[in-house]
């Protein structure tokens, strides 16, 4: 690969997690040899994390949703105005969602799904639970040196904890959770207000392999290292979730 305009564009696609595995590897080989592209890569990542600053997002004014519902009903000639779901409504919706996950898990069980599918459901259920109960973190901290020692004595292994703020995925904290029948460390990252749970647990012999899945609209990526299983889950799009996983594997 030479550094022509095409390479430059492919470098963007690489940063955006849009290259297939073969081309990613090719790009990584090129990056290890080409200083200029490596410097560009660092700039792209810095720009991307500058853009991930939440202050760039224009939040819709609170009255807009109510106004839209009313306008839409008027336009559609639907007479009955349904009250806006307040926090209570949201909580009810969240528990409905959780029940749906559970119901789906039960249905899926009766069809004897693969171990991977069961694990993915469990991972998504844990993710949903962490958001519902307003219990995303036990140790809220962006400092990896605070989060890592916190797990001492709480799980029987020492998870690797890294802050990825520079890559646009700030660490927000850690939590204890339960995955695959045992205690797991949950590391929580954030991307534009999307919460990402990264579960880490020691692998057993029957461990599920690597893979990606979409469960009830949540994206799940599982991977392994010798002795350890990992899973990342979020409502964040798959491309960016892959990028996080790539950063974690670095």
């Amino acid at each position: 690969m030479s550094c022509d305009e095409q390479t430059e564009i492919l470098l963007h696609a690489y940063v955006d997690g849009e290259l297939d595995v073969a081309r990613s590897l090719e790009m990584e080989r090129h990056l290890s040899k080409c200083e200029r592209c490596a410097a560009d890569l660092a700039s792209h990542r810095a720009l991307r994390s500058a853009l991930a600053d939440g202050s760039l997002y224009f939040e819709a004014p609170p009255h807009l949703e109510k106004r839209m519902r009313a306008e839409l009903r008027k336009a559609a000639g639907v007479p009955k105005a349904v009250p806006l779901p307040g926090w209570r409504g949201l909580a009810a919706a969240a528990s409905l969602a959780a029940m749906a996950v559970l119901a789906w898990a039960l249905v899926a069980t009766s069809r004897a799904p693969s171990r991977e599918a069961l694990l993915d459901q469990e991972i998504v259920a844990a993710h949903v639970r962490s958001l519902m109960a307003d219990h995303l973190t036990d140790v809220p901290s962006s400092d990896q040196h605070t989060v890592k020692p916190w797990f001492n004595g709480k799980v029987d292994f020492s998870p690797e904890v890294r802050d990825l703020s520079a890559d646009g995925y700030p660490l927000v904290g850690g939590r204890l959770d339960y995955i695959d029948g045992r205690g797991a460390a949950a590391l929580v990252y954030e991307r534009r207000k999307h919460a990402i749970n990264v579960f880490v647990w020691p692998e057993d012999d029957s461990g599920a392999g690597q893979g990606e899945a979409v469960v009830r609209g949540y994206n799940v990526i599982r991977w392994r290292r010798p002795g350890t299983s990992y899973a990342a889950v979020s409502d964040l799009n798959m491309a960016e979730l892959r990028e996080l996983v790539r950063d974690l594997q670095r």
Partner: protein
Amino acid sequence: MSATQREPKRSLSPSDHERFERTLLPHLRAAYNLARWLTRTPEDAEDVVQEAYLRALRFFGGFRGGDGKAWLLTIVRHTCYTSRRRGRVTEATVGLDEAMEDVEDDALGPEELLLQRASGAAVAAALQELPVEFREALVLRELEGLSYKEMAEVSQLPIGTVMSRLARGRKRLRRLLQEHARGGPA
């Protein structure tokens, strides 16, 4: 886009209306953010969002499922550019000619530090200053997290053009941030 050119369908059944709200209202946040980045004022953005939702309602029959975000943003974008009130969209200083020359970026040194120090306000100002095509691409990718495929759908462009706009948009944004850091255009 074809959906907005077709003859409006008659009103939806109550259950379809409920499905419409369930599918598309969760993307109100994204709709407003895109509209706000493409138009001049908060009021314009609200008007565009409202018009876009009403269009979406009329053409919901043509919605082929999925999470609806890209479909809605396609309509929001289209509404921004075709809205009856003129001068609503912030200036598009780049023509459709994709061949317009780009500045040489040899002057762009390693500027990670600069970018890391750039405040949110500085980045926002630079993004606002970009020609609307590049701003649109960056907002869809960096703020809305759309994939290239979804971006191509929303912007009605081939993926290759999406990729080159993103690359050039990022390059220009970096240059603007450098200029701002030096205290004004070089």
